[in-house]
C-alpha cells in the first residue's frame, strides 16, 4: 500500500509519502511527484512514513534529484524515520546517496 499527501500551502510545500516505496506503486508515485514538482518551486519530499523501499522506488528518488538539478527548482528529499531503511538499501545496492537527499526537516 502506498499513499501520498501533498501540502501545497506549506512553506516550503511538502509531499508526504506513506507506505511501500516499491515497484508496485512507482507509477502512482511518479504521477504524484510530477504534479507536486510542477506546482511549486520549492518542495520537500518526506519519506518519514515510508515502510519499505526497493530498487525501483530508489531509482525514482534519483529521478527527482535529477529533475531538481535540471529545472533549478529547490527539491529536498528528507528520509526522517525511514533514514535507516534508505541507508540500508543504498549500502546494499552499492549506490551513492542521491544528491538532494537531506537530513530531517526543520519543523
Amino acid at each position, binding site marked *: 500500500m502506498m499513499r501520498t499527501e501533498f501540502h501545497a500551502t506549506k512553506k516550503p510545500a511538502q509531499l508526504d509519502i506513506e507506505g511501500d516505496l516499491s515497484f508496485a506503486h512507482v507509477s502512482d508515485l511518479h504521477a504524484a511527484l510530477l504534479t507536486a514538482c510542477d506546482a511549486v518551486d520549492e518542495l520537500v519530499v518526506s519519506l518519514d512514513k515510508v515502510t519499505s523501499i526497493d530498487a525501483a522506488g530508489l531509482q525514482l528518488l534519483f529521478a527527482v534529484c535529477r529533475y531538481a538539478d535540471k529545472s533549478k527548482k529547490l527539491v529536498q528529499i528528507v528520509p526522517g524515520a525511514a533514514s535507516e531503511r534508505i541507508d540500508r538499501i543504498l549500502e546494499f545496492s*552499492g549506490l551513492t546517496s542521491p544528491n538532494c537527499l537531506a537530513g530531517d526537516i526543520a519543523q
Partner: protein
Amino acid sequence: MNELGSPLETFREEARELLEQLEQNLMQLEEHPGDHDSIDGAFRALHTIKGSGNMFDLDDLVGFTHIVEAVFVRVRDGKLPVSRELIDLSLQARDHISRLLIEAESGSRDTATSERSRLLSMAFEAHLGDEALGASGRRSDEQDAAAPKDSEHQPEGECTYRIEFTPAADSFLTGANPLLILNELAELGTILKIGYCEAIPDLKEIEPEHCYLRWVILLTTDHGENEVRDIFIFVEGSAEIKIDVIDEVDPLIGESGYKRLGEILVDRGEIERKDLESAVSSKSYIGEVLVKKGFVSEEQINSALKEQNYVRDIRENRRTVETSTTIKVKVEKLDELVNLVGEFVTMHAGIAMVADRKNDQDFRAAAEQMEGLIRQVRDLSIELHMVPVEILFSGYRRLVRDLSEDLSKQVQLKLEGTETELDKNVIDSLKDPLLHIIRNSIDHGIESPEVRKRKGKPPTGTLRLSAYYSGASVVIQVVDDGAGMDVERIRQKGIERGVIDNSDRYSEQDILQLIFAPGFSTNEEATNVSGRGVGMDVVRRNIEAIGGSIRIQTEKDVGTTLSIRIPLTLAIVDGLLSRIGDSLYLINLSYIVECLDLKDVRTAGNGGDMIDFRGEIVPFLDLRSYFGVEGVAGEHPQLVVVAIEEKKIGLVVDALLDKYQSVIKSLGKIYERVEGISGAIILGDGKPALMLDVDRLVKVTRDEVKK
C-alpha cells in the same frame, strides 16, 4: 616473510621449484593426457616463471618460456592434444629453461644455448598453428587477456572477478529483481557492489517501471566462473553480463599494488587507450582530466577508484595472511637449530648429573622441568626437519622414463607411501643410492618387452617405490617385477673372486649381499647405464653411513625387492644407557622389546646359545665377549631383548643405567669398520658412550645361529 634474501635470489629459488613442479606435471600428463589439473599446473608454472622473469628483465628466459606457455594455452583450451612428442619436447624445454636460469645467474651467455633456444622455439612454434605470437616472441596483452576467456576459469585459491551487470530495462516488470542477484552473489564470497545511476533520466522523462541501474561488482571467491555465472541463469538472455578475472593468487608476481586508475578504465572499456595517453601527458590528476575532457563520468572515476582500493586491500590482506602462516627458512639454519638443540640436550644431561650428585631437591626439580621443555624443543626442531618422501620419489619419474626409453624397455613407476616423512638430511643422503638401485633394476632387472612376453609377463614392467614407518625407522623399498637375481651365479662369482668359499654355510642373504662388495658384478658386459658393479658398494656404504641397512629378496623371473631401513632422523635419539666393563653403550629405545635380569631367563638350544623368551626361542649375544671387553662380568648381568622386523635377539650387558637422549656423533675413519657400533655420544660429564648398531647385531647373531 621471506628469509632467502634478494628478490632475484628468491625468484631463482622459486623458479627452480616451479621447474620441478613442471616436470611432475608433465610426467603426470604423460600417464593421463587429459588431466586438467596437470595441464593447468604446467601452464601456471610456465606463466609464473615468465611473469617473474619479466620483472628481472631476463629476456632470453622470458621469450623462450613464452613460446612454450603459448603452446600450453592451446593444450588447455583443447586445441592441441597431449602427445608423447609434446611431452618429450616440453621436458627438453624444462631442461632448457633450467639452463637459461643458470646462465642468468652466472651472467654468461653461451652461443650453444642460444642455438638450442632457437631450435626448441621452432619446434614449439610448429605446435602453435596459425596463432601468431606478438612481437619479440611475446604474446600481446590482448592475447593474454583473451586466453582465459576461452575456458571456464577455475581458480586454484581465491580470485577476484569483475562482473559488469546491466539488467534489462524490463527486469522489474519480469520480476527479475537485480538486488536479489546481488544478494546471491554476496553469498559466494567477499563482495564490493558499485551501483551506477547515471542512466536514470529526470522525473519528466523516466519510465518508472523501467530499470536504469547497472552495476560493477567485484567478487572475491574460490568458486569457479561457472558457479558465478549460474547466479545470472534467469536473466542471461536479457541482461548484459561480463565477467573477468582481475586478480588471483600468484606467489611470485608483486602483490601489494594494483593497476593504475587509467588502466582500470581501459580494462573496463570505459575509455580508449589513446584518450588515456592524451590525458596522462597533462600534469593534473588523471581522474579530473578524464572527466574534464568528457572521456568518463565522475561516477566512472569513483567506481574505478573503488576497484583499485578493493583489490589493493584484498592483496594486502592476502599477503598478511600468507606471511603470517608460512615462512621460508634455509635448510642450513634448520640444521644449525637441530645441532644446537643437540648440544642443549648434552648440556642438560650434565646439569642433571650435577643435580643428582649434589642431591639438591630444588636443583633436581628444575633440571627435570628443563628436560620436559628441551624434549618439546627437540621434537619441534626435528619436526621442522621432516619432509615427505614424495620429494625424493617424484624426482625419479623422469629417470625411469628416460632410462626405459634408452634401453627400449617399457617400465611403469608406481609410488606408494609418498606421505611418509623423513629427515631432510636422510632424504638427501638417499638420493644417489636410490638412483643407483633404480638404474640397476631397470638395466638388469626388468626385461625387454619381447623377453617378458616370452615369459608370459605383461610387456610393461613395474617398478614400485614405497615407503612406510617401522618403529623409529622408515623402510624404503624398490620392487621390480623383473628377472630376479641369479643367486647361484652370484655364489659362483663370489667363489671365483675368493670372497666366499665353496662351503654351504652361506645363507641366500649372505650371497645376495655380495653384490655390495666393491667391483662385484655378474654381468660380463658393462652397459653405460649401470656399469660393472661400481657403485653398489658405495650404495651400501652411503646407507650405512646414515645408520641404515639394506636387504635383498629375490625370486627368479618374479622380481627383486631391495629394502632400505633408515632412521627417521639422524639428529637425536632416545636410548637406554648400559654398561659393559668400564665402557658405556647406548641402545636405541625404539628397538627394545623388554629388559630382563639374565638369571631369570631360561636358556635353550643345544649349546645354550638361545633363550626362551616368553615361549619363543631367541638367540642372544654376549656383548662383553663380542666386543672383547676384558675383566669379569658383573654380578647381575642384564638381557635386553631387541627386535628388527619381528626378528628378535637378546643382548647381554653388565648393567642397565638410565634412559638417555642424545645427539649421535660420527665415529670417524678409525671406528668405521667396527661391526656393531654405529656412532658415539658424549654424556653430560663429558664421557663418551658408543651407540650400538642393533640392526647389524641382529643380523650377525641370527646368521651365526644359522651356521
